Every structure is written in structure tokens, then in C-alpha cells.
């Protein structure tokens, strides 16, 4: 021990130690850069969902249905959103459009906003106030839902907006609190099924008998779960009225 150089912070480093210190400093700097690279490249692909500002503003007309989450059954579309399609909506941020859509239930309305798109799933983030949704001329009725029976599904409960691409990544456990916050703000919840149901991987979720997402579901958001419920086709969209008593973590 007696021969070893002794470092005192406020004195110049002893000669025998300088080489070690230069090496340690260089290793620290290189190590930090290497750690930055290793951790940075270990991130998963957030998927294809995104805001489609590149499509420009979308304005279409359709019939409003409350499931209770509002849907539009398009009667007059454009070259992206075709007549006969059905889609969900959200407001800017972590809010739904329930308040603005409710007075227009069953009526024809014009909606305008930007698309969020992930594969077959898309949603419209409406502009503010009446620019986003307002009563319009025209005729149309809410199509009669088609009952597809009781299903037991395995998959993940997500908030439809982040899932569609508002957040990238917008699903998974690290995103759970954000998803819950969206759902508390009435953003439509979406079930991502591991097996397609009647050709669709995404289903709008409601509670039983036309209620909103049951409170019990919040603990299960972002996890891999199994749940039973009634599946109905509302226009072109599947709606899954889940039975909260059957919610369970999937094995």
C-alpha cells in the first residue's frame, strides 16, 4: 500500500495515477456513448398508426349514433372516407366529443377534422366547437345493428386515439396511465383482438346495455386479457359490449 500513489483532490494527481485516470475518464465517456446507443436501439417499433396531416382536413357528412361513444355513419363521403363507412371521433387532446355529439343523436351532421389511422382502424380528431361537428342538411338513419352473438375475446383494451397513432407508441403497459387518462376523458376505448372477429382486429368497446366503459375495466387496460361480451356490427364498425364480470388476465 505504501508504494501506491495517493490522490488528494486539491493537489495535482500523482504521476503514477495519471494514466489510470485518463483511461478511466476515456472509458466513462465512451461507456456513456455506448450505453446511449445500446439503450436507444433497443426500442420497439411503435407501429404504423399516425396522425394523417398529410391527407389534409377531412370533412364528411353522416348520421350520428351514440353507442354511447359517438359514431358517424357516413352518408356523403370524400375520396378517403367513403359513404357507408362508420368511424369513431375524438376532440383535440385527451377528450371525446360526447357533449357535442349528444344533441345530434340520430341526426345528420357534418364533421370535420384530421384523420388518425392505423391499418384498418381510423378515427377523426374533430376541429373545435361547431367547426368540428354541426347539424347538416340531408337524410339518413342509423343502420340497424347486426347482432353477431356472444364472444370470448383475448387481447388488449386500449384508448382508440393513442392506438390509432396519436401517441407513438400508443399502447402497452408503459402507456397505461396515458390510456386511462384518455378513457377518463371519454376517448372511445378499442379492443385489439389477437384473433380477427368477423375480419376485424379492432372493436369499439362499451359496457353492457349501451353504457360507457365499465370502471372495472380500467385496472385491465393495456394488459393481455380475456373478456366476454356481445358483438354487434354498427354500420362497418364492430362494437363489443363487454361483460365486466368476465374480465380476466389471459394466461
Amino acid at each position, binding site marked *: *500500500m*505504501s508504494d*501506491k500513489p*495517493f*490522490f*488528494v*483532490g*486539491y493537489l*495535482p*494527481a500523482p504521476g503514477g*495515477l495519471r494514466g*489510470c*485516470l485518463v483511461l*478511466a*475518464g476515456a472509458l*466513462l*465517456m*465512451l*461507456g*456513456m*456513448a455506448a*450505453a*446511449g*446507443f*445500446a*439503450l*436507444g*436501439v*433497443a*426500442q*420497439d*417499433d*411503435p*407501429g*404504423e*398508426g399516425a396522425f394523417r396531416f398529410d391527407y389534409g382536413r377531412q370533412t364528411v357528412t353522416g348520421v350520428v349514433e351514440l353507442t354511447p361513444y359517438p359514431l358517424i355513419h357516413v352518408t356523403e363521403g370524400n375520396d378517403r372516407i367513403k359513404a357507408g363507412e362508420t368511424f369513431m371521433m375524438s376532440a*383535440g*387532446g*385527451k*377528450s371525446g366529443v360526447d357533449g357535442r355529439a349528444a344533441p345530434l343523436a340520430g341526426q345528420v351532421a357534418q364533421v370535420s377534422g384530421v384523420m388518425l389511422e392505423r391499418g384498418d382502424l381510423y378515427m377523426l380528431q374533430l376541429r373545435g366547437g361547431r367547426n368540428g361537428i354541426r347539424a347538416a342538411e340531408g337524410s339518413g338513419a342509423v343502420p340497424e345493428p347486426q347482432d353477431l352473438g356472444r364472444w370470448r375475446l383475448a387481447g388488449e383494451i386500449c384508448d382508440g386515439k393513442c392506438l390509432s397513432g396519436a*401517441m*407513438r*407508441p400508443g399502447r*402497452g*403497459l*408503459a*402507456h*397505461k*396511465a*396515458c390510456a*386511462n*387518462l*384518455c378513457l*377518463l376523458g371519454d376517448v372511445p376505448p378499442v379492443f385489439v383482438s389477437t384473433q380477427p372477429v368477423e375480419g376485424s382486429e379492432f372493436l369499439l368497446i362499451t359496457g353492457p346495455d349501451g353504457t360507457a366503459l365499465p370502471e372495472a375495466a*380500467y*385496472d*385491465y*387496460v393495456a*394488459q393481455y386479457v380475456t373478456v366476454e361480451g356481445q358483438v354487434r356490427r354498427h354500420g362497418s364498425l364492430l362494437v363489443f359490449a363487454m361483460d365486466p364480470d368476465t374480465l380476466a*388476465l389471459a394466461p
Partner: protein
Amino acid sequence: MSVKYIPVQWNPNKWYYDGIMLVGVAAFLWVFLYITPDALGHERPINPQIHNARAFGACAFTMLTVILCIGPLARLDHRFLPLLYNRRHFGVMTAFVAATHAGYILDWYFAFSSRSPVQGLLEANTSYGQIAGFPFEILGVFALICLTLLAATSHDFWLKFLTPPVWKRLHYLIYAAYAAVVGHVVLGILQDDRGIGVNLLFIGGAALVCVLHLAAWWQGRAEPMGIAATGWVQVAPVDAFREGFAKITKLPDGDRVAVFLHEGQLSAIANACAHQNGPLGEGKIVDCLVTCPWHGFQYDVRNGQSPAPFTEKVPTYLVKVEGGAVFVNPAANPPGTAVAPVPLEKGAT
């Protein structure tokens, strides 16, 4: 050592230390932020805000891991002691990096709602009763509070104000913070990420901290005490002593004593430095003063007092040489008590 408080008593070594640390942090962030997006090659990139949050979070985790490795490394090999010297600046920097991570998270995941970000953070996920989906953010909040508290009290003013034992205990919160960060990472990103790489890196970092602490503990565990019938504690044989250095022994009450050989004479002082409990017995006598290996506080080996104008004091002990071995009386003298040095018998070098 200071008699008045100034924000930082700069010296060239501190400049080098901080410079290297800042370059390291900048390198981590630059590589994570600007090099990895291309390397990832995602068709559509991760949101910049999320990418930034991850960069700063991963950087804070790495910094904390490095900080916690320094202590045991310095115990295992004294060449690492200089890394300890300005570690508090590393800690303060970590608190800033962690706060930036938290800022990005609050401003993104918890923004854009009718609740305030903090309210959203506390209310959005309350699934505390489960592991998958546990609100891991709260562990990050706890860690950030600890890091902020430690950074805010890192200055020697607080050390003096709180007294070293309280300050030292408060600063053990770093371990609670690290445990919380590990929980935050494991329950957050690791549960989600399917890549093995990120798991290995985070878990490997935490495992390294544990292994180094265990190794340092194993190496530093006290030799069995030789207690004479008189109650004096045997330190070492006389020929184990080297001029300018100490032998350390543990007393029955758990305290340690450092017995120094200085100019052929033995003197014993407490092993714990009055600054931050640094191991004085692992230091060296420089200019006739015992010099702490951590930050260089100095003490006169004959009375345990720092040279004027400094006022730090440590307890002293009585020493005797008997039958070719050196003994100390385990009863500590009050800090700063002068004790006449005892000549080392023939046979010592």
C-alpha cells in the same frame, strides 16, 4: 475543508471531473437522440417527446448506476478513489437529467387532458394492487423527490447544519432512490418491451451495482478482533506497520480505529472522517497530517484536530505495544484530545 461557504471550491481536478462527466452525459444523449433513430429504421418514428423522455430517463438510470458503482469500486481498488472525489456533482447532474425526463413525461403523457398533469399522474392509474399495470410512475416520482432532496442538501453547508451522522443517513436515500428507479424501469418499460437487449442492459446495470457492493462488503468485513484480558483490542503485529500509513481495526462497539505510524511513533484516531465518514485509515499522512482519501480533509494524528483555521475534530484513542503487537484502548477520547504518540518497538520498518 472549509471555514466559509462558497458554492463550489473549484480546483483543476474538479474541472476535469465535471468536464468528463458532462462530455459523458452529452455523448449518451446525443447518441440516443440523434444516432439511434436512423439505426432503428422504424418506418414511422417514435414521438420525439417520448424519444426525448426515454433518452433522459435511460441516461439518469445509467448515471445513477455509475454513481453507485464508484463507492464499492473505490473500496475494492484504491485507484478508483479519485472518482469519488467530486461524486456529488455527478449526483446533482443526475437529478437534473431525471427532472428533465419527468418534465417530458408530464408534458406529453399527462398533458392535453382536462386534469392538470400532476393530477393526471396521480389519478389516471390507481391499480396499486397488481404487478402488471402497476402505476410505476409513482416509483419514479419517489426517486425524483429523493434525488432532488439529495442534490439540494449536497453542499457542505447542509452537512454541517444537519451534522455528519444525520446528513450521511439522509444520503443513504440514494439506495432507496435506486431501488425505486429499478422498480420504475422493471414495472414500466421492461414489462412492455419485448426486446431482450433492453432487459439485459437494465438488469445487468442493477446487478453490477449489487455485485460490487457485495464484493466490497466481503473484502471489507472486519477481521476477528483480538481482545486482551485487559479489554484492549489488538490491531496488528508491530512489523505490519508502514511509515505514513495506518492499520484499521474494529472495536467491540462497531466503530473502527485507524492506528498510524508517523515518524516511528504510533497514534490512533477514529477511522471515520468528520466530513462524510470517509475511511481515514485508508488515507495517508501528507505534510504531517492524516489526509482523508475521499475529499482530502486533514487531521493532526496526535490530537485528531484539523489544522487551523479548520475546526473539524475526530476522537483519539490510547495505544500500547505489547509482545510484538499493537493494541488500542476501545474507550474513545473526546474528539480533539491530544494523546502522546507511542514509539514503535524494534522490528518495525
